[in-house]
């Protein structure tokens, strides 16, 4: 089992409030990503779950047990750190053995020399050896067991750190940006490996990252945190397509979502940049913000379609996609439009007509709340 729930967690360092009344329910076996910009309190939250940091108020409940006053090691969680945090003076094998020895051996059995004479240690040692071997097989690090962390590459260290977490067979894994020290190609590769690992272990994963790509690709559900608050908790596709507030919409998605000032008429129809949305909205406000993702805008040559004119100022060619940064009305207002490479390249300085590809867009209050 591995259900974890957080109830009204508050945490502040001195006068800075890091977490504000945060509540979160994590189901057994899910891959939950805590995502947010740096400094939003997600790592602190993970440390509170782990027991490495004490919350000012609120409860942490693991498998229906309140663990507020339980020590980190007794919570039966395992953590993978950004810098891997392997013991630099021990071989990979010893690194993997350490948590097991500390958990299974009694005080006497752990003593150097004397411990060897305790008969029960032999059996325990055998089961530890088996576990270490099994884990190293799963992670394909068996041939690295006798090396020290200093002799390993980044990816290998990452695996060793995962191994040290896995050997304990914990109720949940906590991961604090475990992939951010790897190079781009390896990171993408490890993403799929972590997902596979999660599928085979079926254990709860709580994964902290500032990289929304990791959150979108791996998680069952993602929790978007900004400024110590949990803004939205939902499946990645729901968070991307149906964000609850403008802050979430702006944080998730790359390139960033475009926002336009819009006018709302008394009948609820919305107009921005000369384009009228098909749907009518039920709201009392007259002014609002329309947000459109770059892939929902298109460069059109069809003069019948409602569109607005803009000048291409910068072109990002990613191969599969091209993103045009365009400038509207000679002002500083810039938006990003996705173009397909098949349509041919448009050079900087050209004027283009931009329209909505689905005549559909999200509407937000000027304060940031979603208007549905």
């Amino acid at each position: 089992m591995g259900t974890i729930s957080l109830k009204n967690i508050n945490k502040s360092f001195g006068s800075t409030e890091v977490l504000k009344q945060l509540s979160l329910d994590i189901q057994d076996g899910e891959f939950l990503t805590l995502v947010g910009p740096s400094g939003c309190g997600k790592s602190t939250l993970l440390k509170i779950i782990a027991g490495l940091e004490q919350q000012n108020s609120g409860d942490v409940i693991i498998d229906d047990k309140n663990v507020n006053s339980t020590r980190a090691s007794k919570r039966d969680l395992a953590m993978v750190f950004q810098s891997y945090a392997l013991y630099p003076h021990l071989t990979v094998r010893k690194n993997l053995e350490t948590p097991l020895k500390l958990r299974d051996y009694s005080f006497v059995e752990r003593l150097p020399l004397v411990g060897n004479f305790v008969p029960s240690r032999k059996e325990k040692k055998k089961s530890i050896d088996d576990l270490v071997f099994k884990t190293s097989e799963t992670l394909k690090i068996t041939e690295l067991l006798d090396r020290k962390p200093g002799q390993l590459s980044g990816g290998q260290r990452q695996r060793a750190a995962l191994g040290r977490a896995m050997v304990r067979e914990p109720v949940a894994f906590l991961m604090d940006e475990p992939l951010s020290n790897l190079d781009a190609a390896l990171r993408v590769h490890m993403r799929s490996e972590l997902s596979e690992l999660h599928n085979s272990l079926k254990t709860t994963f709580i994964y902290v990252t500032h990289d929304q790509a990791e959150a979108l690709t791996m998680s069952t559900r993602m929790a978007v945190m900004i400024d110590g608050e949990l803004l939205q908790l939902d499946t990645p596709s729901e968070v991307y397509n149906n964000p609850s507030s403008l802050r979430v919409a702006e944080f998730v998605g790359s390139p960033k979502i475009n926002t336009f000032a819009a006018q709302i008429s008394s009948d609820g129809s919305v107009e921005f940049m000369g384009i009228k949305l098909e749907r009518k909205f039920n709201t009392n406000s007259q002014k609002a913000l329309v947000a459109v993702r770059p892939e929902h805008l298109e460069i059109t040559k069809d003069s019948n379609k409602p569109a607005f004119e803009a000048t291409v100022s910068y072109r990002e060619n990613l191969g599969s996609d091209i993103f045009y940064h365009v400038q509207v009305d000679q002002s500083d207002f810039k938006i990003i439009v996705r173009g397909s490479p098949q349509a041919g390249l448009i050079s900087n300085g050209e004027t283009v007509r931009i329209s909505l590809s689905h005549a559909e867009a999200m509407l937000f209050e000027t304060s940031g709340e979603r208007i549905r």
Partner: protein
Amino acid sequence: MLARHYIGESWKHGLLIIGALIVLIPFYMMVSMSLKSQQEIQSISGGLVGAQEIQTFPVCTKHGYTEEVCTMRPYKYNFWFAFKKAPIPRYLMNGLIVTVSIFLIQVLIALPCSYALAKLRFKGREFVFSMVLFCLLIPVHAIALPLYVMLAKAGLVDTYAALIIPWTISVFGIFLMRQFFMTVPDELIDAARMDGMGEYSIVWKVMLPVAIPALLAFAIFSVVAHWNDYFWPRIVITGNRDLFTPPLGIREFRGGIDSDEFGPMMASIVTVTIPLIVAFIVAQKRFVEGITMTGMK
């Protein structure tokens, strides 16, 4: 252009060579004098090793040895007579006991202290640390008298304890290790806590092995200072020659009828210095290749 470059470089090297000579010449003289005869030392002749003529040494016969025993080559005489005149192995042993005990106890105290100062959050931590810094400013000589009185009242004068106890808390060690521990990532400590280690286990099983390069640096400071210390042993060892440390032992060669015989004196100094030199040639290698933090990032 090139010539000027070389002139600039040679100027620097010249200065460094002069500096090195200032340090090395006394060593050269010490080794040279420990090998030569008294006449050669006094007439400043004979180069590094002297003529090494077999001769009879008058100071030796004055000490009651037969002429036959006192006839040998100067280098042999100097070292033989140094060991005859003073129990040098005993002094070396005392030096070893004192410096090693001091260092071990210093580490035993400094590591938990500096771990707490660097990695644990508690009220007054900054104040405690500023007190540590303040203690760095107190010269030994200022507190020597009260220390002596304390030890004397406790009846510890003329014991090993008197040589060791005042040095067991090294504020310099606490400061040095604290600075080193500040560079150890918190994640390593968090990982150890997740694995189930208590704070003391973290100090001895994680921080100690990680800190070996810094500890070696501290060992050099500590061992050199206390091996060479003359001031404190001179104060607390008042009569018992069995407790003399090497610097006190060397003093045996001064004063008395043969006070101006430099050969055996220099031979004893060479004997006292060699262990340090050997220790540091060995330690230096470990120092460079020691377990570094490369495994971390």
